[in-house]
């Protein structure tokens, strides 16, 4: 197919993601029961937790890509790191918004400077900073090197954010599903797991497409550079014939 970044594999992945998202909406908003304590607000769990976990995974991919880029100067890993951070930023934004709305029901406020919330906000600022570095008007290799160094910061920040509820006393709930015996209803647990799978599929689909878009951006940049060089050469040659040497 011309003019798109799709291929047979991504179309299958996209169809699976769409079907999964429809099933997730059905389970999250209709079939799963309300919670004894939190009532209907528990339905935000099925978007809040999966987006958070997939965003954290996306940042680890960015860290891995940054390390490999700094080591091997591989364009493939550079673009993977960039694409993964873009998706992670959107998913972390979704985590923050869903968390704020859920917090309004659970705690009575949209925001409080709790350790988990603060570290998540800090992580969001870091990833926006990383994406800002990616837009700096400078030579591509220098920009990629700088972005890779900034990208490394996402690793420790993500770890601190993840363990914030364990290391500090927080309003935010601690780990529930990572326990060996999770205290959660069967259908709720199934819906949550479905959410993890669907958002992981979405991440994979978006990663491939964003990678290809960024790859095309690099090629257009190269073509523009080639054209500019050719123009300069042509100007220099013309100048050579027009201006006689002394």
């Amino acid at each position, binding site marked *: 197919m011309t003019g798109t970044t799709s291929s047979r594999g991504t179309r299958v992945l996209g169809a699976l993601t769409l079907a999964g998202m429809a099933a997730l*909406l059905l389970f999250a908003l209709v079939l799963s029961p309300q919670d004894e304590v939190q*009532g209907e607000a528990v339905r935000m769990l099925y978007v809040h937790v999966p987006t958070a976990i997939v965003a954290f995974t996306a940042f680890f991919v960015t860290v891995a890509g940054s390390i490999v880029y700094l080591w091997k100067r591989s364009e493939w890993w550079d673009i993977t790191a960039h694409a993964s951070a873009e998706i992670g930023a959107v998913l972390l934004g979704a985590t923050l918004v869903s968390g704020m*709305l859920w917090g*309004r029901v659970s705690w009575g406020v949209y925001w409080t400077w709790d350790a988990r919330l603060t570290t998540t906000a800090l992580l969001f600022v870091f990833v926006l900073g990383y994406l800002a570095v990616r837009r700096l008007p400078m030579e591509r290799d220098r920009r990629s090197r700088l972005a890779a160094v900034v990208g490394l910061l996402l690793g420790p920040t993500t770890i601190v954010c993840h363990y914030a509820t364990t290391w500090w006393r927080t309003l935010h709930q601690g780990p529930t599903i990572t326990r060996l015996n999770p205290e959660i209803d069967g259908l709720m647990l199934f819906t949550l797991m479905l959410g993890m799978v669907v958002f992981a599929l979405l991440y994979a689909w978006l990663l491939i497409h964003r990678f290809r878009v960024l790859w095309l951006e690099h090629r257009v940049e190269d073509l523009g550079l080639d054209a500019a060089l050719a123009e300069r050469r042509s100007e220099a040659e013309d100048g050579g014939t027009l201006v006689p040497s002394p």
Partner: protein
Amino acid sequence: MSTGFQWQLVLLCWGLVLVAIAVLVVRSVQRARRLSRQVPEEQRRWM
């Protein structure tokens, strides 16, 4: 907290997340189309 208010927040939450994802998807598709016109086909091997 009333059930109606909880449902409002639940639907707002899901709606915002789905809209954010849709915007990312649509913008990616539009950008891919625009860039593909400028890049020779041999450099777009996934097609």
